[in-house]
């Protein structure tokens, strides 16, 4: 991807050390990367990382899982621990040559610059900080951009190096007022547009944080619109019972309404929106096609352990069918296959197939297991932030809003002037009604990204614009009213 390549290019250009001074601010002239000046005079060890960066310094410790390195830049030293999963190769410096005993000239660089005492090391903790955010509840309501954004800010305040988003959305029929779970093969593709509202948090806001944490997605249940969220990270792990999908049967969403050409336009724009998420995360967009559209045929072959995706039926025994053309009658999934989660009409990613396809980096059932898989067991600590509280407060706030709004509207409509019902009492009654409408608007404004007042059961409530009209009507009534003549 050229976009990411260019970002990495800037890093490569800058990186002679892991800690690179920022050299440009926004709006200023941009110059191709200039290496930071390292003032170590001894030979340097190097780590070549899998993201293309090269880190030079002195290796302090190497374990089975990690390498701890001391880096000095501009006189400031720091220690950083790298997971071996991120390291491509370790290059140890050659042993320094013995000084030449015959040389007597004095003006060597070392003499010109008398040795300075090592700069006091900054209080850098060895341990990487891990911050966990659980995305549970209804996607688009409980899982919404405001609480996610607030949790990310909290993670930033705590100096998190990693944010683990545990995606486990509610895929029950609760939203429809029923019991049970939505079937995995049910498609809720259009929740994509709800997911897009959260996208900038992952693609713009987190990367532009002063200390941008690495985002890790841990999938337990990412169904419907939630299926698009993990694609926004380069790093996905699955729970062993994890699943990611629920966006299938795209070609059926309009039924028989309208002309085919317009339906195809709608499918195309939706698919490409969704493919864009996969591309941003570094995944093959055809995966999204296979998850969404029944007539996407996809197979896989493995070469050297690496998956090669093939947009066709298998042509040899070493090729495995992932999805067939489910629009053909003979290919329609049976109830048995669907019940067992073995349908082939659309792709639902489970832990094993996600791992084989290179989408998931591993399977972990507990946080400790996940941290171990990430290679951070001994070099990290989970920081206790406010994420749980933030998500709960939001969730509770939405529930309370759904209870309050219809009640407030009922109360407002029931307001009548107090006796004797004169001008003063009528004015007070209208002011009281207007205040309730204004309070309702404030609640709706606070939760507007997630709350549809019309959809609140059982009878809904007026939305912000409708409340504005009600207030306008009260103003006009007040204007037309006047005190009784004595």
């Amino acid at each position, binding site marked *: 991807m*050229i976009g990411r390549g260019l970002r990495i290019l800037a890093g490569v250009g800058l990186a002679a050390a892991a800690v690179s001074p920022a050299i440009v601010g926004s709006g200023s002239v941009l110059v191709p990367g200039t290496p930071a000046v390292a003032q170590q005079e001894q030979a340097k060890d190097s780590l070549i990382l899998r993201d293309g960066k090269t880190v030079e310094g002195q290796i302090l410790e190497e374990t089975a899982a990690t390498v701890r390195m001391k880096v000095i830049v501009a006189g400031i030293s720091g220690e950083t621990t790298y997971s071996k999963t991120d390291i491509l190769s370790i290059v140890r410096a050659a042993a320094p040559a013995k000084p030449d005993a015959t040389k007597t000239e004095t003006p060597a660089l070392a003499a010109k610059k008398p040795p300075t005492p090592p700069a006091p090391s900054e209080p850098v903790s060895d341990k990487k900080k891990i911050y966990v955010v659980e995305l549970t509840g209804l996607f688009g309501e409980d899982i919404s951009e405001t609480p996610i954004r607030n949790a990310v800010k909290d993670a930033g305040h705590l100096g998190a190096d990693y944010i683990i988003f545990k995606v486990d959305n509610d895929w029950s029929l609760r939203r429809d007022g029923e019991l049970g779970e939505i079937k995995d093969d049910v498609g809720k593709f259009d929740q994509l547009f709800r997911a897009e509202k959260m996208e900038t948090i992952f693609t713009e806001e987190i990367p532009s944080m002063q200390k941008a944490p690495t985002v890790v997605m841990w999938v337990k249940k990412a169904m419907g619109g939630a299926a698009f969220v993990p694609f926004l990270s380069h790093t996905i792990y699955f729970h062993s019972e994890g699943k990611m999908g629920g966006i299938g049967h795209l070609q059926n969403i309009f039924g028989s309404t309208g002309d085919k050409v317009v339906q195809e336009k709608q499918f195309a724009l939706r*698919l490409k929106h969704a493919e864009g998420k996969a591309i941003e995360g570094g995944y093959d967009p055809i995966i999204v096609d296979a998850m969404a559209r029944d007539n996407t045929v996809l197979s896989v072959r493995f070469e050297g352990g690496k998956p090669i995706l093939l947009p066709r039926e298998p042509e040899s025994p070493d090729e495995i069918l992932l999805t067939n053309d489910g629009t053909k009658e003979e290919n329609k999934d049976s109830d048995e296959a669907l019940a067992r989660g073995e349908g082939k009409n659309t792709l639902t990613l489970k832990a094993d197939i996600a791992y084989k396809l290179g989408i998931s980096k591993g399977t972990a059932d507990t946080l400790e297991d996940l941290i171990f898989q990430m290679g951070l067991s001994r070099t990290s600590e989970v920081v206790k932030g406010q994420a749980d509280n933030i998500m709960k407060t939001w969730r509770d706030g939405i529930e309370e809003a759904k209870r309050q709004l219809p009640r407030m509207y009922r109360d407002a409509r029931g307001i009548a002037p107090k006796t004797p019902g004169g001008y003063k009492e009528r004015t007070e009654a209208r002011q009281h009604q207007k205040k309730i409408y204004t309070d309702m608007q404030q609640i709706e404004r606070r939760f507007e990204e997630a709350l549809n007042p019309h959809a609140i059961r059982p009878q809904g409530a007026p939305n912000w614009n409708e409340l504005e009209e009600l207030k306008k009507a009260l103003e006009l009534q007040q204007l037309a009213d006047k005190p009784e003549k004595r």
Partner: protein
Amino acid sequence: MKHSIKALLAGAAMLLATLVPAGRAMADKLHLKDGRVLDGTVIREQDGYVWFKMKVGEVEQEKFFKPSDVEKVDRETTPVGDAKAAPAASDSPAPKMHDGAPRAAIISLGVEDKEMVGQFITADSLDRCIPFLEKEHIDVVVLRINSGGGALLEIQKLSDEIEYKLKPKFRTVAWIEHAISAAAMTAHCMEEIYMMPGASYGACTGWYGQLVAVKGRELDEILYMMEKISARGKHDPQIMRAMQIMDPLSCNIDENGDVKWFQNLNGQYIVNPEERILCFNSQDAMKYKFAKGVAATYEELGKAMGYAEVEWVGKKVPGIPYPVCEAEEAMIKFRNQTDKDQKSLRAYFLEYNGSIQIAQSKPPEERGPFVNKARNALDQIKSMVKNNPNEALFVFNMLPEKFKDWVDEQEERLRKLVKK
């Protein structure tokens, strides 16, 4: 500093020339899985990871590719050490069009929830940006597009605005976040289209009501309009055709990277199968040489445009990931006002009609305050149309001239109400 169109074209021509493989100095070829073949020099290769030096414009850049990106490497140089010594074809910097770095401005056409063409993306609002751009001595205008489409009738106006007002004065490029339907048709007059990694572009079928397609004479007129607009952007007209109707599209890409398009499936690459409508993602757009580059940030965009240095004009605004220049401030203000007016429209009419009704129920000597209230509401309606002239059509179903007549009638009505 302004640039003559000749200077701009000269700069563009040179940029294009240097993107074509320059010869033996960049002797290695990197074949990517997305179909691109890059010319340059392998700096290092390890376990399938490749560090590759290549030129973008006159600027040499080192890029990093993972094994998942790389199909194969055809090497004539030896990496690590030897490759670093390989001379570049030319070390001369890109010719500058004027002294100092070019000044670039970003104008957003559409943001989330305020993105409909014709309502939030209009030729009129774009035209109003030009004095700001000139005042700030802008050389390069980046139209950052994020829209799901909108009114067909605005497309020609927008295209004309870009073609005749912007392009002669500024290097004008499109930077696509999402450009669907009328938004893609708007961008299509620009030769330089850059995509964000998650971008989509296309799906331009005209429709109305319950997914009813535009057909017959009207469709033919729109297809013809887009052929002419494609020519403005130097895009093969078959591309846009496949975005509008279910025509297949394929292409050949020769060893020079030149693309030849076919409105059938006989080409080397099937771009749009039968019975489908074409929409590009960023990978497709690059693979088929439709887009000039992919850029996630404005800094990357500058590099993709071939600039070693560029001054992005504007100030930092929280929540906006690029500098906001004065023209962009004006555009944001226009959108916010349009949005406010849309949401308050019913309230404006309620106030206007309600005030008149109350006034009519009062004796003339008591009508004054109510007529004033009605007049205030009418002023808000007039401001709404002044801010966005298209609202006369969308809201009142009137052409601007007819709307003016309507306003005159209302003002006369109010005058009569207060007459004794």
